[in-house]
C-alpha cells in the first residue's frame, strides 16, 4: 500500500467507528422528543450490554483446550467474592487481576 492508500484505509476505519458512535445521537436529536420505544431500549439495554461485554472479554477462552478456562473461572470468582465482601471497585479489580496473573504465570 502507498501512504495515500494507508491514510484512506485508516480514514475509513475512523469513519466506521465514528458512525456507530454518533448515529443514535443523529437519529434522535436532543431537541426533539425521543420515541418511547427508543427510550425503553435506552433503559433496558445497559444490563444486557454489560453481560455482553463480560462474554466478549472471555470470548477466546477455550473450555476444551489449554487451561480449560479454570484460571478465568477462579479469578472471576475472586472478583465476585471480593466485591460482595468489600464492594470496593478498585480492590475487586486489582485482587482478581493479581489472582489471574499468579495463576497463569505460576500454576497453569
Amino acid at each position, binding site marked *: 500500500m502507498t501512504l495515500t492508500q494507508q491514510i484512506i*484505509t485508516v480514514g475509513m476505519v475512523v469513519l466506521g467507528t465514528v458512525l456507530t458512535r454518533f448515529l443514535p445521537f443523529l437519529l434522535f436529536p436532543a431537541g426533539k422528543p425521543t420515541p418511547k420505544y427508543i427510550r425503553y431500549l435506552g433503559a433496558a439495554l445497559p*444490563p444486557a450490554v454489560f453481560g455482553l461485554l463480560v462474554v466478549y472479554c472471555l470470548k477466546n477462552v477455550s473450555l476444551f483446550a489449554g487451561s480449560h478456562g479454570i484460571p478465568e473461572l477462579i479469578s472471576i470468582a475472586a472478583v465476585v467474592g471480593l466485591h460482595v465482601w468489600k464492594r470496593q471497585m478498585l480492590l475487586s479489580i486489582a485482587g482478581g487481576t493479581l489472582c489471574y496473573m499468579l495463576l497463569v504465570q505460576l500454576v497453569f
Partner: protein
Amino acid sequence: MHSKTTTIRKAFRCAFPHTIPIFAGFWFLGLTYGVYMNVSGFSFWYPMLMSLTIFAGSMEFVAVNLLLGAFNPIQALVMALMINARHLFYGLSMLDKYRGAGWKKPYLIFGMCDESFSINYTAEIPEDVDRSWFMFFVTLLNHVYWFSGATLGGIFGSLIRFNTEGLDFVMTAMFVVIFMEQWLKEKRHTSALLGVGLSLLCLLAFGPGNFIIPAMLAILAALTGLRGRLEEGGDAA
C-alpha cells in the same frame, strides 16, 4: 472564574479514581498494540495517530491486518461498522446522560469506547460534582492512557522485559465489577440474564469472531418481545 476552576478541578478529582483500572488495562493493551505495530513493520507514528483517531481497541488490532493486506477501503469501512456495532447500543443508552453537555458532547460521543461508556453509565456522580465535566474527564483520561500506551509501545516496545502475562485480565475484572454494580442496583435481572445467556449462546453458535452482531440482534429481539412485561413494573431494567 474562580468557581469555574473549582468545578473543573473537583470533577477531575472525582473522575480520576474511576479510571485507574483502565489506566492499567489500556497501558498494557496499548503497549501490546504499539509493539504489534512495531513488529509488523510500522513506525511509532502509526500507533500514535491511529490510537488518537480511531480510539477503539479491538478495531485497531484489526486495522493492522487491513494495512498489511491489499487496498480495500470498502472492506475497511464494513469491518469497522461490524466490529463497533455494539457502540450503537451505548449511544441509545447515553441519549439522556449526554444531554446538556454542550461543547463537550461531540467529544464524549467520539470517545465513547467500551470503558468510557461503562463508567459514565454506571458511576454514581455526587450531587455537587458537575456531570458533564466528570464524563469529559473520564473520556479524556481513557483517551490519553490509550494514546500514550500505544505510542510508547511503538517506540520502546521491543525493550520491555518484565512478565506482564495475564495483566489484560484487568479489563475482564472491570467489566465483571460493572456488571455486578448494575446487578445490585436493579430490581429485576431479566435484561442482565438475557445479555449473558444470549451472548453465550451466540458465542457457541457463531464463534468468537462473529458472535457480536447475532448477540446484539437476539438481545434486541428479546427486549422488544418482553417490552410489555418489563415496562409494567415501571422499572425498565
